[in-house]
């Protein structure tokens, strides 16, 4: 299988904090991969590095065979990456519909644009809120909206930073099913998550990040059983 | 034609220039009242149409159009800064109006639609500079506002200093609005100037005097624009303006019967007037000159009025003595007073020059009795040779 994303020897420091330490990472085309790790491990920072929001101190990022390290953020997005941020990145003053329109108009036009908007409204459950300013949605609804903005354009690679934070177990499951659908359509998915049930539901394989470095990698069962991961991340298996 | 004679008045009653110009409106009101009380102009009362131009050139453009087109005034009295004059001049020309500019300025406006009663450089500098050089020495430092008035006045000073065999110890231009002068003060101290010509304009630049005094510069100063216009000697604490010499065509301290009488009448009508400056006198004179010309012409028609002007004997005995309009340039002759600011900021007059003509424009080739270029000339860009 071809690799859609290759990251090699990626380093980034902020003053005294190392957010990426010699990260070597690769993602197969069509994979569903989860990135987990303690709070502050550098997961969101890793996304920001992939997206070009932070410039790495060293290292390269290759996407679909092209070195995208020197590219600007918007150029990387145009290569086929889509993202949902940890803190909902939506246009608060604009209506839900406009949020979606702006997200899609670059790729879609006319009938396919309106069609996609309707579809996305439908599956995010926001149809009745289409004309509502996004800023007044509840937190969970904002999460949904941003997921909708990210998936509607059918990217090659979907980056999701804690997509289910603030969702009920039911909705979390629904999100998982949606990701499976998308994956089945050929979209590669890389998600950061803390909800292990969700990770279990979606991930083919898992990478654990700790203090900016890759700490462990493997299947979900290997990872949950990993004593080191239990110690730094999962906590004692009790409760 | 009966009805009143309408005079448009566009002066800055607010904004940066208000300090020096509010009094001009009062002077016009005084003259109007006196004339109306005495039966008006040829029996017709004067009616003033006054707008506050807010020290804003745009307002001059808007209101010049308004007074000429809507209010249909017979004549306009307008403008303090030269920029405001230049802003409205195209409009006066377009509507073929008649405007009085009652302000001392850098000179050179050769425009048949304009009558200028303010003093011009040849009147103020040809008197002031030689006197100062004789009294204090030949080395002159000029400190001037960095715009047309300052630059052109400085050019006059330089020319006269050279003609008189002196040298320029320094010449410095200050952008409008600058209020901090530490470096300038040092520059002056380092030069071997015998006196400083200050051609500073606006409230901000006036801070120079206080700062120079605090740093103990201690050189005599000479000016064509200070004291007579902005009464700095009244506004600053003595002795910051001590040893300042100013050539002016009028200030309220002038101790002649005509002047004291003028001041009395003025203060009777406007008891709180902070200061009656030369522009107030010029505005007052302007109305009276206009009255005379209309009466002699028998109408307010511009051509008729200019025909009267061309006779060359339009004169008035005003607060500053006898003044006459020069038909070629439509500027006015003046008696020039040398005012000296003493240590306690009282004024003395060491010297007076009677009847100084506004000769430069005419000599340079401006002759409005022959043609109307509607232009402004300066010594370095004189009218094209005929």
């Amino acid at each position, binding site marked *: 299988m071809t690799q859609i994303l290759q990251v090699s020897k990626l380093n980034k420091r902020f003053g005294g904090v190392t957010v990426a330490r010699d990260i070597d990472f690769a993602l197969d085309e069509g994979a569903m991969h989860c990135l987990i790790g303690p709070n502050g491990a550098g997961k969101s920072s890793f996304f920001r590095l992939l997206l070009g929001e932070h410039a790495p101190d060293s290292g390269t990022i290759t996407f679909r065979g092209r070195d995208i390290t020197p590219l600007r953020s918007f150029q990387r997005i145009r290569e086929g990456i889509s993202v949902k941020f940890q803190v909902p990145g939506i246009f608060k003053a604009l209506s839900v519909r406009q949020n979606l329109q702006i997200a899609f108009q670059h790729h879609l036009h006319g009938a396919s644009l309106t069609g996609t908007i309707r579809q996305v409204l439908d599956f995010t459950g926001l149809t009745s809120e289409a004309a509502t300013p996004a800023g007044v949605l509840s937190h969970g609804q904002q999460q949904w909206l941003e997921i909708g903005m990210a998936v509607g354009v059918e990217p090659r690679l979907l980056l999701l930073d804690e997509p289910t934070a603030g969702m009920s177990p039911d909705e979390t499951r629904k999100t998982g099913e949606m990701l499976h659908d998308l994956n089945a359509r050929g979209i590669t998915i890389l998600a950061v998550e803390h909800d292990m049930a969700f990770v279990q539901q979606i991930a083919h394989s898992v990478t654990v990040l700790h203090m900016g470095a890759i700490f462990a990698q493997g299947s979900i069962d290997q990872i949950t059983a990993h004593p080191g991961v239990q110690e730094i991340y999962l906590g004692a298996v009790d409760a | 034609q009966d009805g009143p004679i309408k005079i448009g008045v566009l002066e800055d009653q607010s904004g940066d220039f208000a300090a020096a110009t509010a009094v001009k409106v009062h002077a016009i009101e005084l003259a109007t009242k006196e004339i109306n009380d005495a039966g008006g102009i040829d029996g017709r009362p004067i009616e003033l149409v006054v707008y506050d131009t807010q020290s804003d050139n745009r307002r001059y453009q808007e209101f010049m159009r308004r007074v000429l087109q809507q209010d249909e005034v017979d004549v306009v009295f307008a403008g303090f800064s030269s920029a405001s004059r230049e802003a409205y001049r195209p409009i006066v020309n377009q509507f073929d109006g008649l405007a009085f500019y009652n302000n001392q300025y850098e000179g050179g406006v050769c425009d048949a639609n304009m009558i200028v009663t303010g003093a011009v450089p040849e009147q103020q500098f040809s008197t002031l500079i030689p006197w100062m050089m004789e009294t204090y020495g030949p080395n002159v430092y000029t400190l001037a506002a*960095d715009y047309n008035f300052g630059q052109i006045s400085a050019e006059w000073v330089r020319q006269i200093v050279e003609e008189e065999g002196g040298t320029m110890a320094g010449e410095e231009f200050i952008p409008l*609005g600058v209020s901090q002068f530490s470096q300038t003060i040092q520059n002056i101290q380092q030069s071997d100037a015998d006196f400083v010509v200050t051609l500073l304009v606006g*409230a*901000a630049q006036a*801070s120079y005097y206080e700062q120079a005094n*605090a740093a*103990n*510069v201690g050189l005599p100063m000479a000016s064509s624009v200070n004291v007579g216009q902005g009464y700095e000697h009244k*506004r600053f604490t003595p002795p910051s303006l001590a040893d300042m010499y100013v050539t002016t065509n009028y200030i309220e301290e002038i101790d002649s019967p005509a002047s004291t009488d003028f001041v009395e009448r003025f203060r009777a009508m406007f008891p709180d007037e902070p200061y009656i400056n030369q522009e107030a006198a010029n505005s007052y004179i302007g109305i009276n000159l206009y009255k005379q010309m209309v009466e002699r012409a028998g109408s307010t028609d511009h051509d008729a009025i200019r025909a009267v002007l061309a006779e060359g004997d339009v004169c008035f005995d005003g607060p500053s003595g006898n003044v006459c309009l020069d038909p070629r340039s439509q500027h006015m002759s003046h008696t020039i007073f040398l005012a000296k600011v003493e240590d306690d900021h009282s004024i003395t007059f060491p010297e007076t020059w009677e009847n100084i003509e506004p000769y430069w424009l005419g000599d340079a080739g401006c002759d409005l009795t022959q043609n109307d270029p509607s232009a402004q000339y300066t010594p370095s860009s004189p009218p094209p040779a005929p």
Partner: protein
Amino acid sequence: MEFFTAILSITYQFGDAFAFLVISCAGLAVIFGMMGVINLAHGEFIMCGAYVTAATARAGLALPVAILCGALAAAAIGMVLERTVMRHLYHRPMDSIIATWGISLIATQGVLILLGPTMQGVGTPLGSMALGDRSYSLYRLVLFAAAVGLLGGLYLLFYHTRFGVIARATIQRPAMARALGVDTRRVYGLTFGLGAGLAGLAGGLYAPTMTMVPTMGATFIVESFVTVVVGGADIFLGAAPAAAILAIIKASLTAWYGQLFGQIGLLVAVIVVIRIMPGGLSAVVKRWQR
């Protein structure tokens, strides 16, 4: 000796420019930096301080006391305005531009109508000191000392007192601060009052050296805005280096090429510095601190 006096002279010029920038921007820095309000009436608070200082000094108060009166008067007016107008505009920084511009129009013209076009000033105290062929106004040294003291005082107030921390918190997340027990209205009132008072202080300090007219605030406004913005988001870290850099540029250009170049150079320097450091100087200082 010639060399020595030249060095002394340029140092004096620099200190003078530095003091002007710092003193004139301090009040603005507090109001803008702390509250995000772009206060176009800053110059009018300065004018108010200057007028009150001059009036009280001429009424017989000692100059330092008169300056204090000026600052307090401006602070009081600032707090009244905060209560009546500004309070309604905190979440609308753009509208605060318009409101403060309106206030500045009212203040300038109101003073013109009420007190006339000019007011008599007070003389500069302390006299001068001669060194070589130059002499220096001693009061200018006082201004420099005041600038340094002001910077230090503000830094201590906002970074090392509870009030400062609470004020900064309030500005960043007003609702959250309220939910934590902070009386945000009082904080806003005090902060705005402090900013206005500092502007009044600037007016008081410069009153003895300047023409007293209703529009006198305008001389300060561009320089103070420019200094605050070049300083960047963290005004107390940024204002001092910003004032220093701008003062060096302005003083040397003025010394060598005259006032025009000093004036234009200052503005061009602003453009260049912002271009090089798009977050302002404080962003750089912060990165370098860690």
